[in-house]
Protein backbone atom coordinates (compact mmCIF):
# COMPACT_ATOMS: atom_id res chain seq x y z
CA UNK A 1 0.00 0.00 0.00
CA UNK A 2 1.48 3.42 -0.94
CA UNK A 3 2.46 5.64 1.99
CA UNK A 4 -0.29 8.24 1.33
CA UNK A 5 -3.01 5.58 1.23
CA UNK A 6 -1.72 4.11 4.47
CA UNK A 7 -1.81 7.55 6.09
CA UNK A 8 -5.43 8.01 5.00
CA UNK A 9 -6.31 4.57 6.32
CA UNK A 10 -4.77 5.42 9.68
CA UNK A 11 -6.65 8.72 9.78
CA UNK A 12 -9.91 6.81 9.17
CA UNK A 13 -9.11 4.53 12.14
CA UNK A 14 -8.64 7.59 14.32
CA UNK A 15 -12.21 8.74 13.69
CA UNK A 16 -14.43 8.48 16.77
CA UNK A 17 -16.44 5.30 17.00
CA UNK A 18 -20.15 5.21 16.18
CA UNK A 19 -22.49 6.37 18.91
CA UNK A 20 -23.44 3.15 20.66
CA UNK A 21 -26.93 3.95 21.88
CA UNK A 22 -29.29 5.65 19.44
CA UNK A 23 -32.91 6.20 20.36
CA UNK A 24 -35.26 7.73 17.80
CA UNK A 25 -38.50 9.25 19.06
CA UNK A 26 -41.31 11.25 17.53
CA UNK A 27 -44.22 13.33 18.77
CA UNK A 28 -46.73 10.85 17.35
CA UNK A 29 -47.24 7.14 17.96
CA UNK A 30 -43.74 6.16 16.85
CA UNK A 31 -44.16 5.31 13.16
CA UNK A 32 -41.66 7.95 12.01
CA UNK A 33 -39.22 6.90 14.72
CA UNK A 34 -39.52 3.25 13.69
CA UNK A 35 -38.84 4.05 10.01
CA UNK A 36 -35.80 6.18 10.84
CA UNK A 37 -34.45 3.47 13.14
CA UNK A 38 -34.93 0.93 10.33
CA UNK A 39 -33.01 3.22 7.99
CA UNK A 40 -30.27 3.64 10.57
CA UNK A 41 -29.71 -0.07 11.12
CA UNK A 42 -29.92 -0.91 7.40
CA UNK A 43 -33.32 -2.60 7.39
CA UNK A 44 -34.45 -0.08 4.77
CA UNK A 45 -32.10 1.18 2.05
CA UNK A 46 -30.47 4.60 2.24
CA UNK A 47 -29.36 4.68 -1.42
CA UNK A 48 -32.40 3.58 -3.42
CA UNK A 49 -36.19 4.01 -3.33
CA UNK A 50 -38.08 2.05 -0.75
CA UNK A 51 -40.43 -0.75 -1.76
CA UNK A 52 -43.88 -0.67 -0.26
CA UNK A 53 -43.75 -4.40 0.43
CA UNK A 54 -40.51 -4.06 2.44
CA UNK A 55 -42.00 -1.29 4.58
CA UNK A 56 -45.20 -3.28 5.08
CA UNK A 57 -43.20 -6.34 6.16
CA UNK A 58 -41.37 -4.16 8.66
CA UNK A 59 -44.58 -2.77 10.14
CA UNK A 60 -46.49 -6.04 10.38
CA UNK A 61 -46.04 -7.52 13.82
CA UNK A 62 -44.87 -4.26 15.35
CA UNK A 63 -47.16 -2.08 17.43
CA UNK A 64 -46.79 1.62 18.16
CA UNK A 65 -45.60 2.16 21.67
CA UNK A 66 -44.61 4.76 24.22
CA UNK A 67 -42.17 2.17 25.56
CA UNK A 68 -38.70 1.93 24.04
CA UNK A 69 -38.49 -0.88 21.44
CA UNK A 70 -35.46 -2.30 19.72
CA UNK A 71 -34.82 -2.46 15.95
CA UNK A 72 -32.06 -4.76 14.78
CA UNK A 73 -30.48 -4.86 11.35
CA UNK A 74 -27.23 -5.42 9.42
CA UNK A 75 -25.72 -2.23 10.90
CA UNK A 76 -26.41 -3.04 14.54
CA UNK A 77 -29.34 -1.98 16.65
CA UNK A 78 -31.21 1.22 17.39
CA UNK A 79 -34.20 2.00 19.57
CA UNK A 80 -37.46 3.78 18.78
CA UNK A 81 -40.64 4.96 20.47
CA UNK A 82 -43.51 7.42 20.09
CA UNK A 83 -43.75 9.91 22.92
CA UNK A 84 -46.70 12.04 21.83
CA UNK A 85 -46.94 15.41 23.55
CA UNK A 86 -44.83 14.21 26.51
CA UNK A 87 -41.66 14.15 24.41
CA UNK A 88 -39.79 17.13 25.97
CA UNK A 89 -40.55 15.92 29.51
CA UNK A 90 -39.56 12.32 28.84
CA UNK A 91 -36.34 13.19 27.02
CA UNK A 92 -35.25 15.42 29.89
CA UNK A 93 -36.02 12.65 32.39
CA UNK A 94 -34.14 10.10 30.25
CA UNK A 95 -30.99 12.18 30.45
CA UNK A 96 -31.17 12.20 34.23
CA UNK A 97 -31.78 8.47 34.50
CA UNK A 98 -28.96 7.83 32.08
CA UNK A 99 -26.73 9.30 34.77
CA UNK A 100 -27.43 6.17 36.86
CA UNK A 101 -26.63 3.74 34.07
CA UNK A 102 -23.48 2.13 32.74
CA UNK A 103 -23.88 4.01 29.43
CA UNK A 104 -21.72 7.13 29.41
CA UNK A 105 -23.80 10.21 28.53
CA UNK A 106 -21.73 10.91 25.42
CA UNK A 107 -22.38 7.51 23.88
CA UNK A 108 -26.17 7.90 23.99
CA UNK A 109 -28.26 10.15 21.78
CA UNK A 110 -32.00 10.76 21.75
CA UNK A 111 -32.96 11.83 18.27
CA UNK A 112 -36.21 13.62 17.48
CA UNK A 113 -37.86 12.57 14.24
CA UNK A 114 -40.12 15.23 12.72
CA UNK A 115 -43.43 13.89 11.48
CA UNK A 116 -45.69 15.38 8.80
CA UNK A 117 -48.63 17.38 10.06
CA UNK A 118 -50.84 16.24 7.18
CA UNK A 119 -54.17 14.71 8.06
CA UNK A 120 -53.50 11.62 5.94
CA UNK A 121 -50.31 10.92 7.90
CA UNK A 122 -52.16 11.17 11.20
CA UNK A 123 -54.83 8.85 9.74
CA UNK A 124 -52.11 6.38 8.70
CA UNK A 125 -50.59 6.42 12.20
CA UNK A 126 -54.00 5.85 13.72
CA UNK A 127 -54.73 2.98 11.32
CA UNK A 128 -51.45 1.29 12.16
CA UNK A 129 -52.18 1.64 15.87
CA UNK A 130 -55.71 0.28 15.67
CA UNK A 131 -55.57 -2.73 13.35
CA UNK A 132 -52.99 -4.98 11.66
CA UNK A 133 -54.35 -4.12 8.16
CA UNK A 134 -53.44 -0.51 8.95
CA UNK A 135 -49.86 -1.44 8.03
CA UNK A 136 -50.85 -1.16 4.32
CA UNK A 137 -51.92 2.45 4.63
CA UNK A 138 -48.99 3.26 6.93
CA UNK A 139 -46.51 1.76 4.41
CA UNK A 140 -47.97 3.83 1.55
CA UNK A 141 -47.75 7.05 3.58
CA UNK A 142 -44.26 6.20 4.87
CA UNK A 143 -42.99 6.12 1.27
CA UNK A 144 -44.75 9.38 0.43
CA UNK A 145 -42.84 11.17 3.21
CA UNK A 146 -39.53 9.33 2.84
CA UNK A 147 -37.51 12.57 2.88
CA UNK A 148 -38.50 13.10 6.54
CA UNK A 149 -36.83 9.88 7.64
CA UNK A 150 -33.69 10.51 5.59
CA UNK A 151 -33.50 14.04 7.01
CA UNK A 152 -33.83 12.77 10.59
CA UNK A 153 -31.19 10.14 9.89
CA UNK A 154 -28.79 12.87 8.77
CA UNK A 155 -28.94 14.34 12.27
CA UNK A 156 -27.44 11.43 14.19
CA UNK A 157 -24.92 13.32 16.27
CA UNK A 158 -24.47 13.94 19.99
CA UNK A 159 -26.90 16.61 21.24
Amino acid at each position, binding site marked *: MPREDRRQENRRDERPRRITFRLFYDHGVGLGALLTAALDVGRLPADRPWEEQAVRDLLIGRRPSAA*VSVMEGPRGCAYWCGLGA*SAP*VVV*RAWRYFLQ*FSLFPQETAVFLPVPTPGARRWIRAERAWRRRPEGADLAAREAIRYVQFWHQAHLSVWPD
Partner: protein
Amino acid sequence: MFSSGIRLIYPSGPTEAGLRVVYYCYGSAHSSIVCAAIHLGRLKEERPSARDIIRLADFDATDTWSIGTLFFKGVDDLGYPVYTLGLGPRRHRALQSVASLLTVPGFGGSPILFAEALPQIGWLARLGGAMSRRYGQVSFGRSLSARAIARHCADLRRFVRTVREAERRAAIDAPTPVLS
Protein backbone atom coordinates in the same frame (compact mmCIF):
# COMPACT_ATOMS: atom_id res chain seq x y z
CA MET B 1 -47.73 -3.21 43.24
CA PHE B 2 -48.55 -0.51 40.67
CA SER B 3 -52.22 -0.27 41.72
CA SER B 4 -51.00 1.37 44.94
CA GLY B 5 -49.00 3.88 42.89
CA ILE B 6 -45.71 2.19 43.76
CA ARG B 7 -43.60 0.47 41.15
CA LEU B 8 -40.18 -1.14 41.52
CA ILE B 9 -38.12 -1.24 38.33
CA TYR B 10 -35.02 -3.38 38.03
CA PRO B 11 -32.73 -2.02 35.31
CA SER B 12 -31.55 -4.51 32.72
CA GLY B 13 -27.94 -5.62 32.79
CA PRO B 14 -25.53 -5.68 35.71
CA THR B 15 -27.43 -4.47 38.77
CA GLU B 16 -25.62 -2.37 41.34
CA ALA B 17 -26.32 -2.72 45.02
CA GLY B 18 -28.61 -0.11 46.53
CA LEU B 19 -31.94 1.42 45.69
CA ARG B 20 -33.26 4.80 44.59
CA VAL B 21 -36.63 6.18 45.61
CA VAL B 22 -38.41 8.56 43.22
CA TYR B 23 -41.62 10.38 44.18
CA TYR B 24 -43.31 11.67 41.07
CA CYS B 25 -46.25 13.96 40.41
CA TYR B 26 -47.21 16.65 37.87
CA GLY B 27 -44.55 19.30 38.37
CA SER B 28 -42.40 18.21 41.31
CA ALA B 29 -43.56 21.24 43.28
CA HIS B 30 -46.14 20.11 45.85
CA SER B 31 -47.23 16.50 46.51
CA SER B 32 -43.90 14.85 45.73
CA ILE B 33 -42.03 17.52 47.72
CA VAL B 34 -44.14 16.93 50.83
CA CYS B 35 -43.87 13.13 50.47
CA ALA B 36 -40.08 13.38 50.15
CA ALA B 37 -39.96 15.71 53.19
CA ILE B 38 -41.97 13.20 55.26
CA HIS B 39 -39.78 10.35 53.97
CA LEU B 40 -36.60 12.19 54.92
CA GLY B 41 -37.93 13.27 58.34
CA ARG B 42 -38.01 16.97 57.49
CA LEU B 43 -41.69 17.24 58.35
CA LYS B 44 -41.75 15.69 61.79
CA GLU B 45 -45.00 17.12 63.16
CA GLU B 46 -47.89 14.66 63.16
CA ARG B 47 -50.25 17.45 62.04
CA PRO B 48 -48.13 20.07 60.30
CA SER B 49 -49.63 23.48 59.66
CA ALA B 50 -49.75 25.17 56.27
CA ARG B 51 -46.91 27.38 57.47
CA ASP B 52 -44.71 24.32 58.18
CA ILE B 53 -45.31 23.14 54.64
CA ILE B 54 -44.61 26.54 53.08
CA ARG B 55 -41.38 26.68 55.08
CA LEU B 56 -40.02 23.67 53.19
CA ALA B 57 -37.29 25.14 51.01
CA ASP B 58 -38.43 23.40 47.83
CA PHE B 59 -42.21 23.66 48.24
CA ASP B 60 -43.89 25.38 45.27
CA ALA B 61 -40.50 26.27 43.86
CA THR B 62 -40.15 24.60 40.46
CA ASP B 63 -40.96 26.16 37.11
CA THR B 64 -42.92 24.64 34.25
CA TRP B 65 -39.82 24.28 32.07
CA SER B 66 -38.23 22.00 34.67
CA ILE B 67 -40.90 19.30 34.37
CA GLY B 68 -38.95 16.12 33.63
CA THR B 69 -36.02 17.17 35.83
CA LEU B 70 -35.00 14.69 38.51
CA PHE B 71 -34.35 16.53 41.79
CA PHE B 72 -32.15 14.99 44.48
CA LYS B 73 -33.70 15.54 47.92
CA GLY B 74 -31.46 13.67 50.32
CA VAL B 75 -30.50 10.28 51.70
CA ASP B 76 -32.93 8.46 53.99
CA ASP B 77 -32.14 6.56 57.19
CA LEU B 78 -31.66 3.32 55.22
CA GLY B 79 -28.97 5.03 53.17
CA TYR B 80 -30.93 5.26 49.93
CA PRO B 81 -31.19 8.47 47.92
CA VAL B 82 -34.61 10.07 47.51
CA TYR B 83 -35.59 12.10 44.43
CA THR B 84 -38.64 13.93 43.11
CA LEU B 85 -39.74 14.08 39.49
CA GLY B 86 -42.48 15.92 37.62
CA LEU B 87 -43.89 14.08 34.63
CA GLY B 88 -46.52 16.52 33.38
CA PRO B 89 -50.14 15.88 32.49
CA ARG B 90 -49.62 12.46 30.88
CA ARG B 91 -47.59 11.03 33.70
CA HIS B 92 -48.60 7.37 33.29
CA ARG B 93 -47.54 7.32 29.65
CA ALA B 94 -44.39 9.30 30.49
CA LEU B 95 -43.51 6.87 33.27
CA GLN B 96 -43.94 3.97 30.85
CA SER B 97 -41.39 5.60 28.51
CA VAL B 98 -38.96 6.38 31.33
CA ALA B 99 -39.24 2.90 32.84
CA SER B 100 -38.76 1.24 29.44
CA LEU B 101 -35.41 2.99 29.03
CA LEU B 102 -34.21 1.34 32.23
CA THR B 103 -34.96 -2.07 30.74
CA VAL B 104 -32.75 -1.54 27.68
CA PRO B 105 -30.08 -4.31 27.71
CA GLY B 106 -26.92 -3.22 29.46
CA PHE B 107 -28.47 -0.19 31.17
CA GLY B 108 -27.37 -1.35 34.61
CA GLY B 109 -27.52 0.61 37.84
CA SER B 110 -29.53 0.04 40.98
CA PRO B 111 -33.28 -0.68 41.18
CA ILE B 112 -35.60 2.33 41.26
CA LEU B 113 -38.77 2.58 43.30
CA PHE B 114 -41.28 4.93 41.69
CA ALA B 115 -44.06 6.27 43.91
CA GLU B 116 -46.89 8.39 42.54
CA ALA B 117 -47.60 11.16 45.02
CA LEU B 118 -50.26 13.19 43.21
CA PRO B 119 -53.37 11.06 44.02
CA GLN B 120 -52.58 11.45 47.73
CA ILE B 121 -53.57 15.12 47.79
CA GLY B 122 -57.07 16.40 47.10
CA TRP B 123 -58.37 18.48 44.20
CA LEU B 124 -58.09 21.69 46.24
CA ALA B 125 -54.34 21.23 46.64
CA ARG B 126 -54.04 20.54 42.92
CA LEU B 127 -56.04 23.66 42.15
CA GLY B 128 -53.80 25.72 44.44
CA GLY B 129 -50.71 24.24 42.77
CA ALA B 130 -52.01 25.08 39.31
CA MET B 131 -52.94 28.61 40.40
CA SER B 132 -49.43 29.20 41.69
CA ARG B 133 -47.27 27.41 39.12
CA ARG B 134 -49.35 27.71 35.98
CA TYR B 135 -51.39 30.87 36.31
CA GLY B 136 -48.97 33.01 38.30
CA GLN B 137 -51.24 33.54 41.34
CA VAL B 138 -48.34 32.59 43.58
CA SER B 139 -49.33 33.88 46.99
CA PHE B 140 -52.95 32.73 46.79
CA GLY B 141 -52.17 29.42 45.08
CA ARG B 142 -49.28 28.55 47.39
CA SER B 143 -51.23 29.09 50.60
CA LEU B 144 -54.32 27.30 49.23
CA SER B 145 -52.22 24.32 48.21
CA ALA B 146 -50.31 24.24 51.53
CA ARG B 147 -53.53 24.39 53.56
CA ALA B 148 -55.14 21.63 51.50
CA ILE B 149 -52.04 19.44 51.78
CA ALA B 150 -51.89 20.01 55.56
CA ARG B 151 -55.43 18.63 55.74
CA HIS B 152 -54.37 15.53 53.78
CA CYS B 153 -51.21 14.98 55.77
CA ALA B 154 -52.49 11.77 57.38
CA ASP B 155 -53.04 10.27 53.90
CA LEU B 156 -49.56 11.37 52.81
CA ARG B 157 -47.99 9.80 55.92
CA ARG B 158 -49.86 6.56 55.27
CA PHE B 159 -48.63 6.56 51.68
CA VAL B 160 -45.03 7.24 52.69
CA ARG B 161 -45.25 4.36 55.20
CA THR B 162 -46.32 2.08 52.32
CA VAL B 163 -43.38 3.33 50.24
CA ARG B 164 -40.98 2.74 53.16
CA GLU B 165 -42.37 -0.77 53.53
CA ALA B 166 -41.81 -1.42 49.80
CA GLU B 167 -38.33 0.08 50.15
CA ARG B 168 -37.49 -2.26 53.03
CA ARG B 169 -38.78 -5.25 51.07
CA ALA B 170 -36.71 -4.23 48.04
CA ALA B 171 -33.70 -3.63 50.29
CA ILE B 172 -33.61 -7.35 51.10
CA ASP B 173 -32.39 -7.88 47.52
CA ALA B 174 -30.23 -4.75 47.60
CA PRO B 175 -28.60 -4.64 51.04
CA THR B 176 -25.76 -2.18 50.42
CA PRO B 177 -26.66 1.52 50.35
CA VAL B 178 -25.71 3.57 47.29
CA LEU B 179 -24.61 6.51 49.40
CA SER B 180 -23.64 6.38 53.06
